[in-house]
């Protein structure tokens, strides 16, 4: 064995270290078993483009409607496009990471990180 200068931590510090380690190991498992960061970024980008373009089409169509029937027909293309996806999520065939993390934590991260980044950008101007 190697001559590490070992100093055994308190149980509290050890458990905290393990938690940090678990997060890094989870990231390792994602990169090894799921996809590397550029591929994950590609899928994120696809999701955003899909939502953006379909939302734009929906708004454009809704903007012209005068009757409830026209509202329904405006919503139909996007409903058809995504019905298979939402059915799979409802049946738990497809699982979404934000649901696994817990919605409170996800919203907290969105708010906190968005505000922190915005603050740095504002302060630097």
């Amino acid at each position, binding site marked *: *064995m*190697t001559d*590490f*200068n*070992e*100093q*055994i*931590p308190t*149980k509290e510090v*050890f458990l905290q*270290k393990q938690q940090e*380690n678990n997060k*890094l*190991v989870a*990231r*390792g*498992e994602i*990169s*090894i078993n799921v996809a*590397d960061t550029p591929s994950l970024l590609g899928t994120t980008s696809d999701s955003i483009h899909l939502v953006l373009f379909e939302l734009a089409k929906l708004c454009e169509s809704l903007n012209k409607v005068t009757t409830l029937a026209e509202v329904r027909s405006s919503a139909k293309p996007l409903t058809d496009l995504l019905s298979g996806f939402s059915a799979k999520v409802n049946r738990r065939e497809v699982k979404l990471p934000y649901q696994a993390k817990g919605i409170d934590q996800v919203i907290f991260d969105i708010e906190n990180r968005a505000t922190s980044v915005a603050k740095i950008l504002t302060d630097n101007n």
Partner: protein
Amino acid sequence: MALEQDIAELVTASNNLTQVVDDKVQLIDSKVTNAETKINSAILNFANSHSSQIISYYDNARHSQTSINPEIDPLDETKTKWKALPTTGTAVHMYPSVGQLTKVHSTNCYSYHPGHYEDPKHSNDHSCTYVQFVLANDSATSEQINTQLALQNSNHAYYGGWWDGTGVFDAKVIRVPGQHPYSRLFIRYINRVIVEGKAPQNVINFGGNPTLSVTKVINYPHIKA
């Protein structure tokens, strides 16, 4: 007359002495030149041997014994089978020289003994799980690696510590005859007893869940291990 003779003898003696000094200076000059040549050649050899490296690059992903999920060695429950270190890296394959110095560069090689926190201490778990490294043919099985290691019959160091930081560790190199020579890093886990005199324990169930991140492996083909 006696004085003239004395002077003549003195001159002769002085000439002789000058000759001796001249000879010695020449001898010293030639020894210094020889030594310079030897030192320059040694420096060159040293530089060459250290700069001649076969490197494979890993992705620094954090692994644990649980995420690697190795099988237990059917012949020895204190060890796991050898398993290729998974990586997203694309520069992993190498042709290492067997028997030459090989170093694994890691940013984390963390082992601990969970029994430390038991009350009484180490009453159930008295083990610590460490990791061992070997470079082997891409398609080598754990059994083939063990066969080749047994032929080398040399001490195989194990690594890990209750210490989070970077480290450089030794790896063995083996080659399985007849297999494609593409080689990569394999690891296995091994339990050591923390409390002297106690029996070795099963590597999966005892000794903790060590973690490891590897950035690169370097084989020095001109330096003997």
